[in-house]
């Protein structure tokens, strides 16, 4: 394990070092809302937060992006112009989700060049979670507040210092390159990290999901009952770090146009509706089944991964307070 420490007073120096690697984006608080934003040496990073409002997936898979342009000469792919980027102090759950949707965007057969480009150019320094929200349940899904995978470096914030642990060779290279910044971690710092993780886990809500009982041919009435108060908006999916469904839309202008990729939501009534008017998922229950099954059954079948990181954003933001923890309990009962 390659661990180093940094005194809190030196954090600006670390940010300066990160800025040499590329654009740095980190959680910043404005008007009580913590959002990922581009920072400079002067910015103050919000380290004590539960999670950023919008999932970090948007850095790799933006809400909308031009994928190609067309004109009299045909169709040309769009260069997305992604810059080398450092994501700093993002939560391990969000980092994990990038690996998940990466499985979709980059598979053996087809590689999504837009996602790939951004992923290749991004260096991730995550921040282990010490202040989970009441809606967090990452541990129940085999995640946990200090999960390392996906990050290049994982950091831990303690009272007066930070501890960094290099996870990937790139992470290690960064630490070595900037070794003047760091010192060796003290034993009490290492035990504090452990304690912090244990304390965080205690704050999480526990969800027992009996995946075996999750069946797609469950009674439609059951799904309809679960989805009864659903408004068919996309708050849950748009804020979900693992939801990756999109639509391609052509915008036409005078002598050409562009094809735009936009986030789409399986909870929208129009999502699967065909031009003929036929809608294979016309009921709210059908759509709820699709969302839940996709995350907890189809993804495990296809990728051996549960497409939920337990961040709780869907619970926090559903206008009808449909709680995915309760939904799971109901449909696996």
């Amino acid at each position, binding site marked *: 394990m390659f661990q180093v420490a940094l005194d809190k007073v030196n954090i600006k120096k670390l940010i300066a070092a990160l800025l040499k690697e590329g654009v740095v984006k980190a959680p910043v608080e404005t008007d009580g809302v913590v959002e990922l934003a581009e920072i400079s040496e002067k910015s103050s990073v919000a380290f004590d937060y539960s999670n950023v409002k919008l999932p970090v997936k948007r850095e790799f898979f933006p809400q909308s992006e031009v994928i190609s342009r067309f004109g009299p000469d045909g169709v040309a792919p769009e260069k997305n112009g992604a810059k080398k980027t450092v994501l700093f102090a993002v939560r391990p759950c969000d980092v994990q989700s990038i690996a998940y949707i990466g499985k979709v965007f980059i598979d053996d057969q087809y590689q999504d060049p837009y996602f790939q480009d951004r992923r290749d150019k991004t260096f991730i320094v995550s921040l282990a979670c010490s202040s989970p929200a009441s809606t967090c349940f990452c541990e129940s899904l085999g995640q946990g507040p200090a999960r390392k995978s996906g990050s290049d470096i994982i950091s831990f914030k303690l009272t007066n210092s930070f501890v960094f642990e290099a996870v990937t060779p790139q992470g290690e290279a960064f630490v070595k390159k900037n070794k003047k910044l760091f010192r060796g971690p003290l034993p009490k710092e290492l035990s504090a990290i452990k304690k912090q993780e244990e304390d965080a886990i205690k704050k999480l809500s526990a969800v027992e999901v009996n995946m075996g009982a999750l069946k797609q041919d469950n009674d439609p009435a059951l799904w309809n009952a679960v989805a009864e108060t659903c408004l068919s908006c996309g708050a849950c999916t748009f804020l979900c770090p693992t939801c990756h469904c999109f639509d391609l839309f052509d*915008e036409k*202008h*005078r002598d050409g146009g*562009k094809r735009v990729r936009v986030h789409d939501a399986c909870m929208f009534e129009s999502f699967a509706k065909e031009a003929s008017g036929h809608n294979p998922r016309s009921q709210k229950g059908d759509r709820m089944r699709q969302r839940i099954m996709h995350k907890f059954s189809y993804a495990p079948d296809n990728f051996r991964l549960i497409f939920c990181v337990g961040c709780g954003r869907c619970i926090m933001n559903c206008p009808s307070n449909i709680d995915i923890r309760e939904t799971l309990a109901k449909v696996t009962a």
Partner: protein
Amino acid sequence: MAKATINREPTIVAFLCNWCSYAGADLAGVSRLQYPANVRIVRVPCSGRVDPLYIIKALQEGADGVLVSGCHPGDCHYISGNLVARRKFALLKSFLDYFGIEPERVRFSWVSASEGGRFAALIEQVVADVKKLKTKRKLVKEEIAA
């Protein structure tokens, strides 16, 4: 980015009702009245047919100004189409003003079939007012603005 004042000719999209204002425009033409060529006319059955979305959409697609004109109150071919429209446009105009969209960009007027001169004067005024604007188009799509 773009300069505040425009140095290209502005485009005005005009929704004219079939029975009065379109005929008024026609009369202006046959009477050989001169008026600016910046206007692109869309003929609609009635000013009441004009959905506020038409206007918003025209601005989004790059129109520098939008004009809606119908029969004078009381003269509507469909009796009250323009009176219903009048309420809608009163709200829309105030609504767009509220966001800071220049009032010169969205205009409503009445022109009858016999008012060729009034039509020419109206276009003259609408185009001149838009040309005087110092602020850039607000609703327009990025590509079109560029």
